[in-house]
C-alpha cells in the first residue's frame, strides 16, 4: 500500500513541477506548485514526519503561495513578454537559453550517475513510531535554541526589507 502511494505521489509531484516550469502563465504555475506541495506533503506522511507535512501545507501552500498569488495578481503581467528592440540584440537570448538547457541536462545526468552508484538502501524504521511534535519541540528548543532565535531575527529583517523595497519612492 505504501508503495502504491509513494509512486502515485512521486509521479504527481514530478508532473506538477514540470508543468510549473513549463507554464507560460504565472498564475497557473503558482496553482500547480500548490499541487506539487500537496504531493510532497503526502510523501512526508509516508516517511513518518507528520509535523513537516503540516508545515508544508500551512506555511508553504497556505502562506508563501498566497503571497505569490497576490503579487501575480497585483502585477497583472499574464504572459512572458519578449524583450523587443535593442535589448534583445545584446542579451543573446537564444544562446543563454541553450547554455542553460545544457547545464540543466548536465546536472540531471550527474545526479543520476551519482545515485546509481549507491547501493539500494532500505528505508528502515518499519516498526518505529512516527516522530512526534513533542520530540521535535524538545530538540528544537534545547539544542537548536540559538538557531531558532536567529531565525526570528531573520524574519524581522526580511519583513522590514520587504516593506522598504516595495514602498513607493518619495513617500
Amino acid at each position, binding site marked *: 500500500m*505504501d*508503495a502504491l502511494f*509513494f*509512486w502515485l505521489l512521486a509521479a504527481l*509531484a*514530478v508532473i506538477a*513541477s514540470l508543468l*510549473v*516550469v513549463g507554464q507560460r502563465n*504565472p498564475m497557473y*504555475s*503558482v496553482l500547480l*506548485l500548490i499541487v*506539487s506541495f500537496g504531493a*510532497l506533503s503526502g*510523501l*512526508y506522511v509516508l*516517511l*513518518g*514526519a507528520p509535523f*513537516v507535512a503540516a*508545515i*508544508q501545507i500551512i*506555511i*508553504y501552500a497556505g502562506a*508563501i503561495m498566497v*503571497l*505569490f498569488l497576490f*503579487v501575480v495578481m*497585483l502585477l497583472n*503581467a499574464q504572459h*512572458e*513578454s519578449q*524583450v523587443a528592440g535593442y535589448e534583445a540584440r545584446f*542579451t543573446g537570448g537564444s544562446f543563454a*537559453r541553450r*547554455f542553460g538547457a545544457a*547545464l*540543466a541536462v548536465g546536472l*540531471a545526468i550527474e545526479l543520476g550517475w551519482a*545515485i546509481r552508484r*549507491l547501493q539500494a*538502501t532500505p*528505508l*528502515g524504521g518499519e516498526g518505529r513510531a512516527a*516522530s512526534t511534535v513533542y*520530540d521535535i519541540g524538545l*530538540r528544537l528548543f534545547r539544542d*537548536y535554541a540559538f538557531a531558532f532565535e536567529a*531565525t526570528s531575527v*531573520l*524574519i524581522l*529583517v*526580511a*519583513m522590514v*526589507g*520587504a*516593506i522598504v*523595497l*516595495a514602498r513607493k519612492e518619495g513617500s
Partner: protein
Amino acid sequence: MNLLPEPTLNSYLVLSAVLFAIGTAGVFLRRNLITILLSIEVMLNAVNLTFVAVDRYLGAVDGQIIVFFVVTVAAAEAATGLAIVIALFRHRETLNPDAFRTLKW
C-alpha cells in the same frame, strides 16, 4: 505478485534529484521573474525531501528541524524577492530579467 517495488531510500533520493533538476532547469530557462522564484521554491522542496528521507533512515529528528528552518528562510526569501520584483516592475513594466541589465536608471 508485486508490480510496484517498495520505495527505498534511493527512490526518495532519486525523486528529490529529479525535482531539483526540474527547478534548476526552470531557473535557467524561464524568462519571468515570478516563475524563476517559483523554480527556486521547487529546488528548496527537493532539498527538504532529502532531509526528511535521510532523517527517517537515520531515525533522528534533526533533519525535520532543518526543514523547519529551510521553510522559514524560504518565507523570508519569498517576501524580499517579491518586494524586489514589485520594485523592478514599477520601473520597467516588465518581468523579463533581460530587461534589467543596468545598475542605475
